[in-house]
């Protein structure tokens, strides 16, 4: 039976060595390039006509714009509008990476913690910098909830700081674990289809069909959760409760 974890292996396609740094194009890098290209094509070609009454493709492009714009308006408010380009890019990148990864033989780079943790770290550092720039030292009042007796402060402040620091970890683990678990599960069931033969093979096959549909849901949901949490963090940074 094929190894269900083989699909996550990173293979070097074009070896590039920049001094000490190994900057080779791997299959993960290739699929990132593909993802960005597909998004660019989807949006620019979709909006090519710019008709007042959108066609199917244009309305899909507009729908994704409206979806993120509404998400920012609901969760951050009007001050969040200037962060729209970042949040929109983030959402489209994750969503298309997840969806392209569902194509057979494609590589899902969101199933790698290195990728998701980098994205989460960018969000986390960016949000922290925004908060400090906007609120200066008042930002650190975040770590002591108001109305807490000072006796509790030495215990509570470390807990709040840890809780704050755990944000990028939980953000990245959630996306990576979902994608990795789904793809592994699909491969495990797929590995049973042929060995069980024409009589028993139908059971894992039908499970796989159901899992594929479920994976489409997860692909969208995880992109949504990642962006919605980014919006909530932005809201915290801007309004500081």
């Amino acid at each position, binding site marked *: 039976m094929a190894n269900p974890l083989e699909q996550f292996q990173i293979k070097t396609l074009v070896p590039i060595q920049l001094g000490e740094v190994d900057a080779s194009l791997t299959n993960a890098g290739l699929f990132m390039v593909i993802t960005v290209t597909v998004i660019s094509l989807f949006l620019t070609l979709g909006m090519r006509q710019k008709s007042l009454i959108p066609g199917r493709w244009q309305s899909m492009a507009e729908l994704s714009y409206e979806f993120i714009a509404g998400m920012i*308006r*609901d969760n951050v408010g009007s001050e969040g509008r200037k962060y729209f380009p970042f949040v929109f890019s983030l959402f489209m990148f994750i969503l298309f990476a997840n969806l392209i990864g569902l194509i057979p033989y494609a590589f899902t780079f969101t199933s790698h913690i290195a990728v998701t943790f980098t994205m989460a770290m960018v969000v986390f550092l960016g949000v922290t910098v925004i908060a400090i720039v906007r609120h200066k030292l008042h930002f650190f009042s975040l770590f002591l909830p108001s*109305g807490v007796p000072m006796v509790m*402060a030495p215990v509570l402040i*470390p807990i709040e700081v*840890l*809780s704050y620091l755990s*944000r990028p970890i939980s953000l990245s683990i959630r996306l990576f674990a979902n994608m990795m678990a789904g793809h592994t599960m699909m491969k495990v069931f797929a590995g049973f289809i042929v060995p069980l033969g024409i009589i028993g093979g139908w059971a894992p096959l039908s499970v796989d069909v159901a899992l594929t549909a479920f994976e489409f849901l997860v692909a969208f949901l995880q992109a949504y959760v990642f962006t919605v949490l980014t919006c909530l963090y932005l*809201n915290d940074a801007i*309004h500081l409760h």
Partner: protein
Amino acid sequence: MSDNKPPETLENLDTRLHQAREKSRAGKTPGSSPGKEEMSGYSMAIRIGTEMVAALIVGVGIGYFLDYWLDTGPWFLVVFFFLGSGAGILNVYRAANGLGMAVGYKEPSGGVSEHLSRDDTSDGVNGNNSKSGGE
């Protein structure tokens, strides 16, 4: 809505669009309702789980690193394990209660920030350290 009306002019539509846009911009109070209801049970379960685990990873990681760096036996690991568990439970509580992911949640009424007069900080720190370091 009937289709018998004569088609509107584009200028008319434009002014109405502007009005609607202004209204939707002004009407929202920020941070009032994070989109919670749309989440399914599965994603909620995953979220709560990772929330707990992530805080533990951070706590144990910091503790392990401090011990490795300062060569102080298991003590920082022990202390930060418990702090991490506390942070994890706090995260779960917040996520489940729908308070957003807010660190330092404040009551909307405000005016409670003047509790800073007492200086019991050193007391608590010592109590904490002597418990873990006293053997």
